[in-house]
């Protein structure tokens, strides 16, 4: 992990890049902030890559790659999918970016440690399992339990696009990421409706899911536009929650790489990734396997069609659980 920081210093010192996009130390061990470093001193003082570097940095490149000079960025495998997808959508200037791929074994954050039962955390020792120092004594927890939701169902260790690699190139890994979706599909419509009402009714419309999403890159979101007629700032009816989340999920359909940032940042722990994954699962089943951001030349399923695509009535016959 130290090699990542050394690489950042090396790139700045050699003049290869003028800025580095990475993670900055916080007040605790777990509260790292995405940051741009402009000098070796800044990197030495604040750069860190650790078990808590979960934030996907690729969205910052939309703005950063349009500035003067070259910027280096560190991308974990899942981040690299977003990076490629953004290139496919012509949202970033690749020529201004020096991408360093880094391998990753899964990330944690303060909230994931808290849900694993830690409170009053003051430090951590990373090893086979995690030893968390707290105000109330030490706690040992299995790393697996403390991983971020998105890391528990990691789909790939492959870094799709990079200029340089630190560590090994990985491969797609078998993942049961659609298991939860399938479980929901197997429920009755009443149960599904009740499930989503419970989850979505917690939504406070902070828009964190949208703002962190690398696929949500509209200059002005329709839900931020007072003259759109659908701004829905006063979330006075359950309809507004449904509307926002359906439309958001639909808008990123076939562009969502399933990076899991939406669920990571949700302050209310709403499993938003289950909406996106439903679309991914449907696309895989109806139109053939597709992974957004996995390559540069495949056609996105919603910008494509086949003459013999199934009719929409397919959903009446196949029921909730597909095939």
């Amino acid at each position, binding site marked *: 992990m130290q090699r990542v920081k050394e690489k950042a210093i090396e790139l700045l010192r050699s003049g290869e890049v003028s800025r580095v996009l990475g993670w900055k130390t916080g*007040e605790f061990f777990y509260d790292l902030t*995405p940051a741009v470093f402009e000098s070796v001193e800044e990197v030495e003082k604040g750069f860190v890559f650790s078990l808590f570097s979960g934030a996907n940095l690729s969205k910052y490149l939309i703005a950063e790659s349009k500035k003067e000079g070259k910027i280096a960025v560190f991308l974990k495998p899942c981040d690299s999918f977003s990076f490629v997808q953004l290139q496919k959508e012509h949202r970033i200037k690749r020529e201004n970016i020096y991408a360093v791929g880094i391998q990753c074994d899964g990330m944690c954050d303060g909230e994931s440690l808290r849900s694993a039962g830690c409170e*009053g955390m003051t430090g951590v020792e990373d090893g086979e399992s995690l030893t968390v120092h707290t105000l109330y004594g030490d706690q040992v927890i299995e790393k697996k339990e403390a991983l971020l939701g998105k890391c528990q169902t990691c789909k790939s260790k492959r870094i799709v696009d990079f200029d340089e690699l630190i560590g090994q190139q990985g491969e797609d890994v078998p993942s049961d990421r659609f298991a939860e979706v399938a479980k929901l599909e197997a429920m009755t419509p009443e149960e599904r409706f009740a499930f989503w009402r419970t989850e979505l009714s917690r939504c406070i419309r*902070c*828009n*964190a899911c949208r703002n962190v999403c690398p696929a949500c890159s509209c200059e002005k979101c329709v839900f931020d536009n007072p003259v759109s007629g659908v701004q829905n*700032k*006063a979330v006075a009816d359950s309809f507004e929650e449904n509307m926002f989340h359906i439309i958001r999920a639909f808008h990123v359909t076939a562009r969502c790489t399933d990076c899991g940032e939406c669920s*990571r*940042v949700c302050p209310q722990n709403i499993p938003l990734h289950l909406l996106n994954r439903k679309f991914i699962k449907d696309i895989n089943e109806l139109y053939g396997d597709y992974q957004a951001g996995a390559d540069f030349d495949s056609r996105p399923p919603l910008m494509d069609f086949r003459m013999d695509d199934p009719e929409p009535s397919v959903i009446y016959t196949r029921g909730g659980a597909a095939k």
Partner: protein
Amino acid sequence: MKKIAISELNSLFAAIAADRKLYIPTDDSTGQSQFTIWEEGSILSRNVNTVRSAKDSFFPQVENLMGFKVTGKQIELIETRDPAESFAVFGVRACDVRSFDILDRVFLTEPVDTYYAQRRENVCIISLACGKPSETCFCTAFGIDPAEPKGDVTCWMTGEALYWQPNTEKGEALTAQLSVLVDADVADIEQEKAAIRATAEKLPFGKLDLSAFGQGKTKELFNRPEWKALSQSCLGCGTCTFICPTCQCYDIQEFNNGKTVKRFRCWDSCMYSDFTKMSAGQPRPTQTERFRQRFMHKLVYYPDNNEGIFACVGCGRCLRKCPIHMNIVKVIKTMGEGTK
């Protein structure tokens, strides 16, 4: 001082809820806690704090202020104010109790916000001392004692019992109705208080240096270069504002269904691009200015107008929930270092 066995808590809640709505923190399906209306079977959360703050009780996220019905040239006004019912909120931590004073100074000064005032009058606040403060807690930096929260009634929880101390007339009146409580000795909780204070001593930000902020610091802080770096990765979401117990900005929105118009008040966030947008445009065009607004409001503008009182209570919610982990402590520390 009264008490009740922890195993009997349910009968205490039932007695309070007998003639009023009672809100208590309960765990949701993901293990985080929220204030919910008590009903038979509700279980009190053991989390240190709720995701959303207790301000929701007086200042809900969305509130229907009034309605209009238009027929020809006639406009009929439809009253939508909730009936003035008394209610109680149990388990409010010391930080949230202080936040009510901060909100009061906004909503109860002339012109008084009557919607807020009505709920404020009808509430009985039952606070609860913090057994196990989190590392993100820093209420002590604002002179709040987590071992001795204010409110109409103050409660302490030990392993076996809940101790109950009424502080106000409202609290006394409620206590008189609760026959389930038995007398207790004030000395019983001294040990608990001492333990809480001992933990509070160890809190990493418990003695945060606030000297760079407060009254009259606007000129000094407004144009500081640090704002840019601090706000650089801010996503512009409203998480911090919506979970904050003292954020009180709102917007007015109308919903027209063709026959009637409903006027809503809803929370707004200074982090949003359309915050205080006027016909001439957005007064704070970039995220840096919006970000600065939030922290200047809490640490400089509010104290300027309110005898130096900070509009932060150190509940630590923003430290936990910010998607990029930028928060008021980092702002205070960065700016503080810059002034030294």
